[in-house]
Structure formats: structure tokens, C-alpha cells
């Protein structure tokens, strides 16, 4: 760690990992409700559990992005963060808001209240006071990081990162636009939801990935930057009008079907570019970085994002297909693998990379961390397959043959049971990850014959300690 | 070919497309002729206006993609 203020990231990453644990645990509960519909129906109704599952996901990913920004901006700009105090204040506001959200969702004390009541828009259910808090915290954050970058070195990584973070914060303002007309409501709603995950977040993802590649592979900055600009341009070109793929059936004019189909089909391109980028950098790079876990998460991120966001997204993005698959388990399959690949893996990659520095350890070989990668990724991939099969069956029975919704759900039970199993693997993987990051002080694995040979003969090879 | 020669070629090819349409020709020969003329125009713009003549391998890549797309267009147009 070269700059003292990078330490801010530690607090952000810790809170993020707590919420990560909450998120996957609630996912497991929800997975069981799919198997046994009456489970916890009095204490934790499905809709409340789902709100907590999705909201905690978004919040911890955002906290991870903030932490990543606080970690990498000092290194890139070669400056301490403008004000560490403000950074901790920002985190405190987020923690308070999160606690407020949990209380509001659980007990629903202020139903209908303008300021305190939950808003009832999917993913944007937060009461208005929390939304206002998020805006204040975001402003503090943007002020803090922008001041740092403006006074220091400006690199492609900080440029694209700031572009993504500013866009993300400004688009959140549409969370306050809530027209009574449901079609208009949805139209603005997607300005937040779609333009986050398929626009500004992609810029954040590309820049963090670029930072990791720069550090882990040692490829020239010039090469990394060229890739980064191309990826950012592709993401915005396809992603902005790609919003049209949400405007097929909400009451917007019919031409959106073609705009949405064509542009969102191209959304696979930036994800392919990110995957190509990661692998080409590793292949070109000659640095043998000892933090193998961070590299594994980075490559896993690029690959699973390509499949989850790119391929599984394309699967149901053409309006002729979406007419049938809309709102089935196909969407759930895509949502899980896309979020996991693109944003969960990304955060866990930067956490895996930064934590040894933040905690003052030498990079160690993180065998447990890598085991967590395979367990969690295996779980999510299996979950994606079960949900894809469930969605295919559901589409056929419900949308083609016209069977009723609940009748079809009965037919899907076996897939839901298998999905629960994969959920167990994910939760175990998450717990293992958190343990591996926080607990072991030394993790020594005796080198085997191959490793011993490399250490003896390959000058570039660095021992993992 | 200079830029001006390229421009004159484009004028000739454009006039040819319009003349073909005005001649009342239709059916498969018309589809193939009109799209081939479009391909020729696109090639000239890529090579001369956009300067890809200086990068033959990239120009060949564009030409190949263009040919594939135009053949697809021909197929779709003839299927109607």
C-alpha cells in the first residue's frame, strides 16, 4: 500500500462482505421458498425477502465499487484521497440507510408515508429519505474522488472510472421520477436499472478490470488504455439504445422492438471484448504475480460476464423470442449469472487483490480463496442451468400451451430443488471466501515437484508465500 | 485512383442504379444488379474516401464482410 488513504477501502470492503453474506443467505431462504411455498410465509414473506436479497446485492456491489475507487485512485492519481473523513462519513450514511431499509422492509411501519414509507417500485423500494441519503452520500463520494483526480494524474483508468461513477450517480436521480402512468413509470425506472447495469456499471467494471490487468500482468499501460477506451465506447454505443429491449411490452411505441433488438444484440460485443482483453493481457504479460486468486477472479469475471450478461442476455433479447420468454425463469437465469459474473466476481477480484496490501500481508497463495472461487462459480453456473431448463419448460407450458401459472410452477419443482442445492454451494463458497480473506494470517502450501522446479529454474517465477 | 476519379466513379454507379430502377427492370436480375452496384460504391468509399487502399488486408476484410451481407440481402430480397 503506497498511500495511507487507501486504507479507506478496507472499511468499505468489510461492510460489503457483511452485506454479501446477508444477500446470499437470503437467497438461500428464497430458494427454499420456491421448493416449499409456505416456508416462513408469516415472518418473512417472499416479497420482503426478495427486496432484501436484491437491495443488499446492489448496496454491497456499490460499496465494493466505492472501496475499489478509494483503493485505486490514489495509486493512479499518485495522490492521497482528498478527504478520508468525508469518505468515512459517506460510508456511515450508507450503513444508516441500509439499516433503515431493512427496518422499513421488515416491519413496514410507515406504509404510504411520503418520506418514510417504502416506495413499492421493484428494486427502488427504498423510502424517500434513504434515496435522499444515497444522493447525499454519492455527492460526497464524487466530490471526494473528483478532487483527488483533478489535483493528481489523470489516466484512462481514472477517466473511465469517473465517467461511470458520475453517470451512475446522475442516473439514480430518475429514482425520484415516479409518474402515475405505469408505462411512463417503467420507462424512467429503466433509466436507473438498465442504464446502471448495462451502461455506467460496465464502465466501472472495465476500468477496475483494466487496473487489475495492469497490476497483475504488467502489460504496458498504453496497451491497457487502448483496450479500455474501445470497451467503454462499445458499451455505451450498444447499451444506451439497448434500453429499448425493456420497452417491448410496457406500452411504448412498436419501433422500440427493433431498436431494442438490434442494439441490445450488440451488447454482447463489449463483454466479449472484456473477455478477450483479460485473456490477451494475461497471455502477453510476463509478470508472474503471486496473487493467483485475484487473477483467477479477474479471468472468471470476464468469462462469466461474457456468458451471463452476453450470451444469456442475447438468448432472450430479440423481441420475437422475448414475447414468449418474458418474465419467466429464463430472466432469473440470466440475472443470476450476469450479476455474478460481471459485478460479484469483479468486486471479489479487487478485494482479493487489495486485501493483502490493506492488511499488510505479503501476497500469499490464497488456496482457500481459489477454492471459494470454484465452489461459488460452480454453484452459480449450475443454478443458471437449472433455471434455464426451468424457464424453457415454463415458456413452453405456460406461454405456448397456455397452462396456468401455478400449475406450471408445480411442474418446475424438480428444477427448484436442484437450484436450492446449487444455492447451498454458493453460500458455502461465500463463507469460505470471507473466511479466507479475513482469518488466515499465513497460508503455506509446501511446493510440489513442479513448483519447486519452476522456482529453481524460472527467474520470472515468483514464489507464492 | 485519385479522390476525384473515385468521386466520378461513384457518380456513374449512382446514376446506373437510378437508371436501372427507372428502366422498369425487376425480378432477380434487378436485385442482383442493384445490390452489386451498392457493393461497388461501398468498396470505393472504403478504399478511397476512407483511405483503406493503404491497408489492403483490412480492406479485404471489409470487402468480404460486405459481400456476405449483400449476398444475404439478395437472398432475403429474392425470397419475397
Amino acid at each position, binding site marked *: 500500500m503506497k498511500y495511507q488513504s487507501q486504507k479507506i477501502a478496507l472499511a468499505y470492503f468489510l461492510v460489503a462482505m457483511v452485506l454479501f453474506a446477508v444477500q446470499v443467505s437470503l437467497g438461500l431462504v428464497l430458494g427454499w421458498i420456491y421448493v416449499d411455498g409456505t416456508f416462513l410465509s408469516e415472518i418473512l414473506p417472499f416479497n420482503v425477502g426478495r427486496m432484501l436479497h436484491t437491495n443488499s446485492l446492489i448496496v454491497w456491489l456499490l460499496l465494493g465499487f466505492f472501496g475499489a475507487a478509494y483503493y485505486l485512485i490514489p495509486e493512479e492519481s499518485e495522490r492521497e484521497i482528498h478527504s478520508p473523513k468525508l469518505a468515512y462519513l459517506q460510508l456511515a450514511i450508507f450503513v444508516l440507510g441500509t439499516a433503515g431499509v431493512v427496518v422499513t422492509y421488515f416491519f413496514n411501519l410507515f406504509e404510504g408515508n411520503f418520506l418514510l414509507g417504502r416506495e413499492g417500485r421493484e428494486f427502488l423500494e427504498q423510502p424517500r429519505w434513504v434515496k435522499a441519503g444515497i444522493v447525499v452520500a454519492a455527492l460526497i463520494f464524487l466530490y471526494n474522488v473528483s478532487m483527488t483526480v483533478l489535483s493528481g494524474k489523470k489516466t484512462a483508468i481514472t477517466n473511465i472510472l469517473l465517467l461511470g461513477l458520475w453517470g451512475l450517480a446522475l442516473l439514480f436521480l430518475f429514482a425520484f421520477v415516479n409518474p402515475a402512468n405505469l408505462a411512463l413509470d417503467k420507462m424512467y425506472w429503466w433509466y436507473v436499472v438498465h442504464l446502471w447495469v448495462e451502461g455506467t456499471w460496465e464502465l466501472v467494471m472495465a476500468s477496475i478490470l483494466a487496473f487489475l490487468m495492469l497490476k497483475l500482468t504488467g502489460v504496458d499501460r498504453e496497451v491497457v488504455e487502448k483496450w479500455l477506451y474501445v470497451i467503454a465506447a462499445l458499451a455505451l454505443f450498444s447499451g444506451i439504445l439497448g434500453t429499448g429491449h425493456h420497452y417491448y411490452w410496457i406500452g411504448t411505441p412498436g419501433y422500440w422492438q427493433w431498436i431494442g433488438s438490434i442494439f441490445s444484440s450488440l451488447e454482447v460485443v463489449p463483454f466479449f471484448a472484456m473477455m478477450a482483453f483479460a485473456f490477451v493481457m494475461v497471455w*502477453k504479460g*510476463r509478470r508472474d504475480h503471486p496473487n493467483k486468486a485475484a487473477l483467477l477472479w479477474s479471468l472468471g469475471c470476464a468469462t462469466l460476464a461474457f456468458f451471463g450478461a452476453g450470451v444469456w442476455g442475447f438468448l432472450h433479447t430479440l423481441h420475437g423470442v422475448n414475447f414468449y420468454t418474458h418474465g419467466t425463469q429464463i430472466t432469473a437465469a440470466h440475472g443470476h449469472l450476469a450479476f455474478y459474473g460481471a459485478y460479484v466476481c469483479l468486486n471479489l477480484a479487487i478485494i482479493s487483490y487489495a486485501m493483502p496490501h490493506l492488511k499488510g500481508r505479503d501476497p500469499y497463495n490464497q488456496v482457500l480463496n481459489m477454492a471459494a472461487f470454484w465452489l461459488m462459480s460452480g454453484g452459480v453456473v449450475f443454478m443458471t442451468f437449472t433455471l434455464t431448463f426451468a424457464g424453457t419448460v415454463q415458456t413452453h407450458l405456460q406461454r405456448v400451451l397456455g397452462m396456468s401459472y401455478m400449475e406450471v410452477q408445480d411442474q418446475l419443482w424438480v428444477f427448484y430443488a436442484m437450484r436450492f442445492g446449487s444455492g447451498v454451494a454458493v453460500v458455502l463458497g461465500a463463507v469460505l471466501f470471507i473466511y479466507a480473506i479475513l482469518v488466515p494470517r499465513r497460508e503455506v502450501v509446501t511446493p510440489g515437484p513442479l513448483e519447486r522446479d519452476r522456482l529453481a529454474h524460472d527467474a520470472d517465477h515468483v514464489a507464492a508465500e | 485512383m485519385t479522390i476525384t476519379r473515385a468521386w466520378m466513379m461513384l457518380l456513374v454507379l449512382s446514376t446506373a442504379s437510378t437508371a*436501372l430502377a427507372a428502366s422498369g427492370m425487376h425480378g432477380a436480375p434487378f436485385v442482383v444488379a442493384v445490390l452489386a452496384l*451498392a457493393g461497388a460504391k461501398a468498396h470505393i468509399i472504403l478504399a478511397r474516401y*476512407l483511405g483503406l487502399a493503404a491497408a489492403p488486408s483490412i480492406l479485404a476484410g471489409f470487402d468480404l464482410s460486405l459481400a456476405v451481407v449483400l449476398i444475404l440481402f439478395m437472398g432475403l430480397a429474392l425470397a419475397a
Partner: protein
Amino acid sequence: MTEQAGERPSVLDQLPGELMMWVLIVSELLVFGAGLAAFLAVRITDPAGFSEAQSHLHRAGAGVNTIVLVTSGWLAAHAVCAAEAGRARRLRGLIAGAIALGAVFLVLKGMEYADLAAAGISFETHAFFTFSYLLTGFHAAHVVAGMVLLAVVAVPASPRAVETGAAFWHMVDLVWVLLFPVIYLL
């Protein structure tokens, strides 16, 4: 850290002009290509309706517009040469000509739109018009953007800026020569 010695020159290094502009050009070609393919695919379902609808367009006007655009592109290409030769006055004159022809294109296009609107034809009238409005409208928006861009690059008048602006303008040309036969002639 060790760097690869004697890295192979990349094919991309041969690209004339700005890499980012080429990324944009290829992206635009993909979008318009997909749009035109979708148009032709939907046309299979109703050839008679499409041909009836097509008769409402200004075929001759669009033919003239092809001439207008390729001529404008010719001026822009000369402007790049002028920029490289350091002749700023000539360059600005050529760019002004290219922009003026862009305006002529928009006027002719606008007359067609006005006539269609007067006949009560909108996006929803027929699938043909959904596509023709989308594709030509999107293209016309690029003409406007290209005119602005050309005006912007003429200010610093550096060869690199002018080359980038002109490349965008040629892309607008390129899209039109592919779009025109498919929408207006077939």
C-alpha cells in the same frame, strides 16, 4: 517486469486515422446492416404491401441525395488533403461546401418526410414505414451530427482532427449507399 522484445506490429496499426472512429464506423455498419436485414426479412411476409408502401417515397429525390452525399464526401476527402498540406483556408472552404451539401440532403429528406406526414403516414401505418422512418431517420440524425462534427474539426484544422471528422462523414455516405437501394429501389 519484463516486456516482450520486438512485438509483432499489429494489423490495427495499418488503419488510417483514429482507431476509435473505426470502432464507431464498424458499430454503425453492424446496426444498419442488422436493420436492413430485418427490413428485408419482414418484407418476405408482405411483398405487395411493402411495394405499395415504397411507392409513397421520393425515389428520384433519394437518387439525387446519393449524388449530393458522395459529392459532399469528395469535398471532405479533399479537405483532409488540404489539412495535411497545411492550407487552412482551402480546407475550411471545402468543409463549408461539404456541410452545405449535407444541408441540401436534409432539405430533400425533409420534403419527403413532409409529404409522407401530409398523407397521414406515420411509424405505425405499415411495417415498411416503421423501418423506413427508423433507418432513414437514424441516418439523417447522423447527417446532422456529421455536419456539426465537420464544423468542429475545421476550427483547430489539424490534419488528425479533420481526418477523424471526415471519416465520420464518409461513414454517413457509406451507410447511405447501402440503405438507398434496399429501402428505395428493391
